[in-house]
Structures are given as C-alpha cells and as structure tokens.
C-alpha cells in the first residue's frame, strides 16, 4: 500500500470476543492535516487510536502510519509518532527541564540536540523562569502546553492527541490550539480526539464514530451543510442519537 497519506486506514477492525469495538473503519489523513476523531464514550475511539499507535494488534483490515504497517512495523511507528493523553503525560515530581530531558532521552535525542531543543522549547513557551520548577507547581494550562511540546520534541510525523484539553478554560484551550496549528504548519499531522464541539470546528476534517463505525467524515462546514444545522454540536447530537452503546 504505497501512498503519501500520513495515516491510511482500510476496513480496520478490532474484536474482543463477540464484541466488535471497531467495525471496519476506513479513512486517510494527509500530511500536515488536523484530523478530528470524534465519538461518544464507548464508540470505539480509544481502541481505534491504540491500534494506530501500535499498542494493540488489529483483528483485521489494513492501516499504515507514516507509511509503516500496524501489524509488522510497530517499532518504526513508535519512532515516528508523538502521543499525549487526557491524563497527564508529564512527571509531576520532576522539574520542567527534567521532563523535557527525559522524554527527549527516551526518543534517543543526543545531548547537544536535547540541549538546543529544550532551550528552544522553553523559550517558545516563555517558561524560562519556570524551567527549574516542579511540574506539579505550574498551572494546568501550562502543563498541557508543555506536554504537547514534549510530545513533538522529537519531530514526529504524526502526533496523537487523546482529549488533550480536558478540564481547562476556553481561553487556554484556544492557546493550546494555536500550538497545534503551529505544529501542523510545520508539517506535523495532528490526530485529535475531543469532547468539545467548538474544538471540532478548529479541525481541517473530522470523523464521527458511532457504535464502532465511522458515520460521517468531512470538513466541519460541509457536515453542517449536509445535516442542515448551525453547529458541530447539532451534527454530533444528530448522529449520536442513533447510537446503541453510548452513554450520552
């Protein structure tokens, strides 16, 4: 499967016994695109994302991440992706600088690279004064920005963001999205799951998963048109209403 897509998924399926968590989903994501991956809790988002990150072997179907096969090349996939989850991806008892050093270190950055990049990162976030502070002493919004910057420190092709903005105010969320745009502009593909429908509007394209299947996939504006509604929230409500296994 040779292609130029960052992520290419074809009839990807994951079954747990009789339960089909992810049911033959197919989509392609372009390089540098911000792709929103929406769905109610239990729709199968997390399972799908785990397969794409090489954490879980699919039951059937095909997928390539950065051109690497999810069955055979999980090690190469891991080298080429970044990941940030809804729970904190940072160590609270380490300082800002130590966190950057550690994550840079496990992605194999050498000492000089690590020094340059962490200086640059700290400068970009305006955190020069806080570099020696423990992560648990800095505000939530900053932690998330830092976590995102750390996730793309090794310049991955794709960054997976699993509900990255849970629990922060709209202003901070907006600032966080600025970082995602910056990353996308520099060519990093962003694969984002979120619960916030206003965030869905920020994505280039979004997919909505219902009961393990992708029910809709298009630009936010096109989706609103299609269903004749004014907001992404209405689109989501419209589609999710038919779900049998959501907890909405």
């Amino acid at each position, binding site marked *: 499967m040779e292609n130029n897509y960052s992520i290419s998924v074809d009839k990807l399926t994951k079954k747990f016994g009789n339960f089909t968590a992810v049911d033959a989903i197919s989509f392609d994501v372009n390089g540098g695109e911000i792709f929103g991956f929406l769905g109610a809790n239990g729709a199968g988002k997390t399972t799908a994302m785990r397969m794409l*990150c090489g*954490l879980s072997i699919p039951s059937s179907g095909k997928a390539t991440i950065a051109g690497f096969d999810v069955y055979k090349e999980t090690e190469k996939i*891991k080298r080429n992706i970044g990941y940030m989850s809804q729970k904190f*991806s940072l160590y609270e008892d*380490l300082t800002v600088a130590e966190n950057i*050093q550690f*994550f840079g270190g*496990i992605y*194999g950055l050498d000492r000089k690279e690590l020094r340059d990049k962490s200086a640059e990162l700290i400068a970009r976030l305006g955190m020069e004064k806080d570099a020696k502070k423990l992560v648990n002493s800095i505000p939530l919004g900053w932690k998330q920005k830092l976590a995102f910057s750390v996730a793309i420190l090794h310049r991955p092709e794709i960054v997976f963001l699993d509900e990255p903005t849970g629990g922060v105010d709209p202003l901070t969320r907006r600032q966080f999205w600025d970082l995602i745009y910056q990353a996308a502009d520099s060519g990093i593909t962003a694969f984002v799951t979120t619960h916030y429908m206003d965030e869905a509007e920020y994505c280039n394209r979004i997919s909505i998963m219902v009961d393990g299947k992708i029910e809709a996939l298009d630009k936010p504006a096109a989706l609103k048109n299609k269903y004749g509604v004014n907001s992404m929230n209405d689109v989501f409500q419209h589609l999710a209403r038919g779900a049998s296994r959501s907890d909405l």
Partner: protein
Amino acid sequence: MKQFWSFIRKEFLHVFRDRKTLIILFGMPVVQILIFGFALTNEIKNSRIMVLDAAHDIQSSRLISKIQASRYFQVTQIVHNEAEIQEGFRGGNVNIAIVFPLNFGHDLESGERPQLQVLADASDPNLATALTNYVSNITADYQREIQKINTPIPTIVPEIKMMYNPQLKGAPNFVPGVMALVLLLVCVMMTAVSIVREKETGTMEILLVSPFKPILVILSKTIPYLFVSLINVGSILLLSVLVLDLPIHGSLLLLLLESTLFIITCLILGIFISVKTQTMQAAMLISLMGMLLPTMLFSGFMFPIENMPKPLQIISNIIPSKWFYIIVKSIMIKGLGWEAIWKETLYLLGIAVFFFALGMKNFKIRLA
C-alpha cells in the same frame, strides 16, 4: 543504551526527590537494628522470684543466696505461707516462686530425695520454661557443689558448649532477620509501587507508545532500589560489626553476592506484583500481606520452623526470606562457605527464575 540511561536517571530523580521516603528507606534499617539490639531482647535478666522457706536451715539459705547471686534472679519477696504466693502471682509482680519444705536440709544431707517446689507464672509460657530451667540448673549446680564436699557419688556432668554464640546473644538471630525484612520491604514494595504509579498517573501509556522497550521500563525502575538496598546491606553490616559486636565470620564477598541475589529476587517479586495490580494501594497491601507477613512467620526469624506442623513447614519453603535467612546466618555467624549454602542459594535462584518467567508472561499478555 542512551535511552536506558535517561530512564535510569529519571528513576533516581524520583527516588531522591521524595525526601521523606528516602529518609525512611535509609533510616529504617538503622532504627531496626538499634531497636532489636538494645530495646527488644529475649535474654532474661533479674526476674523477680518469691521464696517460701519453711525449712530455714543452712542448706536452704545457701541455695537461696546462690539464686540471688545469679544474674537471672532477684529475690523480691520472702513469704511465709501459700496464700501469700497466690497473692504475689495475682499482683503480677513476680514471675516465679520457690517453696522449700520443712525438712529440706535434713533430706539433702541424709540423701533422702530432698524436694523443692517451683511455681512459675505460665501466662508467658516461654518465660516460664526458661525460668524453671534456670532454677533447675542452679539447684543441680548446688547439689554438685555439696556432693564434692561430702561423699563423692559418680554423676554424669554434661559439659555444655553453645556453638557459634557462646553468650547466647540475640544479635546473631535478629541481624539476618532484619536484613531480610528491610531488603524485602524496600525491593518488593517500593518497586511494585513505583511501577504501578506510572499506570495510575497515565504515564505508562506514554512510555508504551514511545520506542522505549517495555521490558526496559520495568528493568530501569528496579535499578535505584538495587542501589538503595546495597547501601542498606552495608549499613546493617557496619552497625552489627561496630555497634553490636557481631563480627562477620565468613566471607564478606560471598555474603554480598548472596545479598545481591536476594535483592534481585525481591525486585522480581516487586515486578510480579506490579504486573498483577492496578493501584498503588493494592500493590502496597499485597506486598505487606503477601511478602512481609510470611517473612515474619516463616523465615525462622521469629518462630522456629522446626516446631511448625508439616504443611506449614512445606509452605515455608517457598518464602525466599527463609533461604536468605539461613544463608546469612551460615556465612555471618557460623563462618561457613559456599559448600554449606549452595542448596539454599539454588532454592533462592529457583524462586527468582520462576517469578521472573511468570511476571514476564503476564506482562506480555497485558500488552497485547
């Protein structure tokens, strides 16, 4: 390899940043050795003894002063009737009482089976047994003395030698025990908790998505505790040599190697627990109930295994601390070498390999 180093560096940061835990980690063995060495002792000194001397003759008073002179007893009360003895025991201020019958001295001198009644407060059975033994020994001694003076009758005098620990000190028993306890606590519990913490905070997920090998995640978590434990072995040995006057009779190198093997076994048990549990509380509880308690019960440190029913004796074989306890005692106290402990070492190694395999198997299943 470079990745491995950054990981180990981070683990050390975790351990050294948490000052309170660090103080406990390094302070615990010191405190335990000092407490066991100076406060808790099972040697019996100056037990309070009551005497009812109905005989009032030379023989009885000599025997009483001999008892008084021994460092085990202190005659606190001279009573005049049985009721007072009862009173004394009820009041709890004596441990043992001796009653000399009317014709004690006469019987002894004329060889007519002199009798002596010894009453002990057996609500503490160990103490009661020990005290009655001391009294028997003192009277037997006394008898021998006077027989030398009078007509010599041939008697068998067993000459008793307490091997390895002539003064019957407590230290040879508890130093290996404390070592097993401390290493177990540090290695099993701390390792299990530190791995499970990553699961609980969600950072484990990030690590699994990274190119860093999961098996290395686990291994690098154990390194700081290996380090802390080796320091603890050192401080326990130093304290026992310098403060408790308990020299290491055998090879120090062998002792350190065996300690390292035990530490590794404990780290493996810690990994095993962390694979099986999801929360820090569960990991801590299982470490305490599943490891610490069996160590206290079955290592032979507090209760002799030989006296246990057969099924319990069999169970005790799967407790790694039991083997380590035997090994440390053999090297440190008895000064024995490899030829005396290879069997115990093999047992320990077997337990380590078994749990390592089991842990890795479960770990792989969890990843899929």
